[in-house]
């Protein structure tokens, strides 16, 4: 996979994760299910993609993590949006807007 493609897909995943956390903290499965829900089932994020992304984003400082109790009284690791993450969400949203607009333009011209 070329570097650009990775960036594009990675950016999309980052954007979705950030978006899913806007309403409050969630654990890994919660994020996964939330993304599934808000994309109408189009995106199903597997743990193999989710966890590396979460850890990378935590190292970037966009999200922070803590251990908490799940709705079924299980120990689970929760993620929460940081201030930098909120900024990043804004940046990513704008970027995504530009891309979709550009793609739509491209498709409309025949």
């Amino acid at each position, binding site marked *: 996979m070329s570097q650009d493609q990775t960036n594009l897909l990675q950016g999309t995943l980052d954007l979705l994760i950030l978006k899913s956390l806007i309403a409050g903290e969630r654990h890994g499965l919660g994020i996964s299910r939330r993304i599934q829900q808000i994309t109408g089932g189009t995106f199903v994020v597997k*743990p193999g993609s989710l*966890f590396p992304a979460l*850890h990378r984003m935590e190292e970037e*400082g966009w999200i922070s993590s803590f251990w908490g109790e799940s709705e079924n009284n*299980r120990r689970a690791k929760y993620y929460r949006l940081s201030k930098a993450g909120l900024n990043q969400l804004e940046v990513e949203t704008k970027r995504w807007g530009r891309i979709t607009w550009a793609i739509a333009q491209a498709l409309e011209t025949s």
Partner: protein
Amino acid sequence: MSFHVKVRSFLRNLFLSRRVETDLDQEVHSHLEMLIEENFRAGMDPDQAQRAARIEMGGVDQVKEQVRDARTGAFLDSLLQGLRFSLRKLRKSPGFTAVVVVTLALGIGANTAIFSVVEGVLLKPLPYPKPEELVAVWLTAAGLNIRDLNPSPADYIISREQNRTFQDIGLYKGYSVNITGLAEPEHASGLQVTDGLLPVLGVIPILGRSFTRTDDSPGSFETVMLTYGYWQRKFGGDRSVIGKTITVDGSLRQIIGVLPWDFRFAGPDLAILLPLKLDRTKLFLGNFSYQAIARLKPGVTVAEANADVARMIPIMLRSFPPPPGYSRKMFQDGRIGPNLRTLKQDVVGDVGKVLWVLMGGIGLVLLIACANVANLLQVRAEGRQQEMAIRAALGATRGRIAGEMLFESFILALLGSVLGLGLAYAGLRALVASAPTGLPRLNEIGIDGTMVLFTLAVSLVASLLFGSIPILKYAGRRLGTGLREGGRSMSESRERHRSRSVLVVVQVALALVLLISSGLMIRTFRALTRVDPGFVAPSEVQIFRVDIPDTAVKEAERVVRTQEEILHKIEAVPGVSSVAISMSVPMDGNGWYDPVLVKDHSYAPGEIPLHRYRFVAPGYFKTLGTRLVAGRDLTWSDIYNKVPVAIVSEKLARENWHDPSDALGKQIRSNTKDDWRTVVGVVGDVHEDGMDKEASNSVYWPILEARSESNDIDVRRYVTFSIRSPRAGSESLVNEVRRAVWSVDPNLPLADIRTLDYYYKRSMARTSFTLLMLAVAGGMALLLGVVGLYGVIAYSVSQRRREIGIRMALGAEHQDLVAMFVRHALGLTGIGVACGLLAALALMRLMSSLLFGVKPFDAVTYGTVSLGLIATAALSSYLPARRAAAVNPIESLRAE
């Protein structure tokens, strides 16, 4: 934006790796359990729920691995893993590791040590600001056949006033002084400098001020500056020393400044700086006995400066009168020209050649060491062929296997270089201690950051060298070969053997080159020691110097009387067989060349016959053991009556009168103003300038003369006493001699207390230093080469056991088998020797300037060394070959 966050997580990943790992493990597991629970709630039965969850999860370990790869510093992590893997493998074979590390440590350590000498002496810039602007101002006199003529005061004054290329110029001259009034009278080394010298060098005193033009002006108050060492030694670093006075050569001088501790201009013994007061109105041409340093204007080249000085020389010759007895034409006939060079060139001199030869030699040793290690690694790689074939079959790429092998080599080299640094540190102390006294910038040699970097670079290159050979051979092999061959050991294929043989040939060739070079140095050293120096048993001659300043004894004849009185007092010391007075002794670097004119001899225009001058008193030749060829020695009555006599060396006598005895009664003088002096004796030739220089054609004048060298009365106040005694060099003799001197005058300090042997050895120091270093390198090369050859034959024997067994079963005799292996070794050695001889023929020309009495293509050395090497090779292969004879044919065929 989040740089510090990244650094924090990097550090966390690195140092809290266990906690990070547990955290990850728990997180992934809790995720899995939540998935199972979700499925269970959705109505699956427990088994189904678990299976579906695991499918969605996609493997707990794989997920964890993916997270690890995404982390900061993932690269470092895998590097550390590789390191752990390599170390584990090396720990498993401690013998192999130890041999390789020690071999490399020797090679790398020796290179670091020699390179730090090269760096300190040759490469490091001089310790002055903008050192590239500094030039040593030398002249040359083509008409007198003098290559390096010292500048004179007249040159200095014209250069300072009329130059276009210098920022400034400073003139200086070594000057030994008696300092009295502090504790014991002391003879110290001083330097007379003009006010420009310190600013030219960029040296700023740490206390007080530098000299000014006022200090330089004749008639101004006498001042002095102290070196840091002398200030510490004599004044304990007292800061109130400025303004105080000390007595130098009997006159009071005010201390105006203290030099910084790193001012190392004229040797570590330098005590004081005095202003050089030149009286312009009283200057003559000549007195070419000073040294000068100038700082070039920015952007000016040495060639431009030389052109500038060439322009000023005629101005100088016009501006000052010639000294009495000389004509301006004599100076013009000298054809004085400029010979400026950078200060660094001047300081380093010709020692560069020796050091580069040594560096080359030690580099060869490292190559030999690398060849040995490459051989060992090959044997090791051979043993691991099966492992590598299996890994390749399981999908490991060639790059990965090669990378691992190289990584292992690098770790070995790194271990070797750490040990090597230690060796270099220890070796350097020994090396500096044994270095010739003339080696410049000795105090700038040391192990520092540059050295560590150099060592690292060397080990990197070395590991590439020896690491790539087994890689080229094994990492790229086709799969089947390794598996097939490893399964059952067959007799060795030719191909496998070839690269090891090539390495042995290279080792032998390199060792031969080194051994020939040290052989040539041994021949040089022997040739030097066989030369008759012109004196005998220098270790039994005690030397010291005494200066009788005119503040102590004014009248010339009284000075000689005092000197003779001291001489007789020393003669009375037990064990002393004879004592002599002279101005200097052979090879001590004092004394000079001046013209000697022979009566009734016509000289070609511009021809000035220069001869070595010595000033002696009766008994000098007897004490040193110089032969009296014809005539007689001087007598004390010659001296006190100022009888115009002289003694000449045999060489001078033969040059002028063919037969030494014909010289007697002939007349000579040093210039047209002097009286003629009658030759009364001819003595044997002495190598005045060192054993590797030709014997001088010398003239010996009495220490007290009338109308000599344009002076009415000429007396030598600063003289050397030579004492022949078997007790020479002992502390007790020196103490008794000192008491004898002080019984005549308690204010006379003794200086330069040494034996004549010191100067004799010093004149050969460069040869003996080079010899020692090359011998060490040659010895190491021989040892490594022998070990290499031994290893190859021993390995070959062990690999060919089956073949040996078959041969034995077919009836081969033991000695035939041994001979087969020895023949093999000798064949390799023979090729190596042939290559080595060719290389030596090409390389030894570089050494010719270091040789004496032996040609760079000396057949004896080449032959002896080659034969010796072949004999050593035969022996070192015979030992392992004997083991072949001990092979039991039945066992070896049944084995495996």
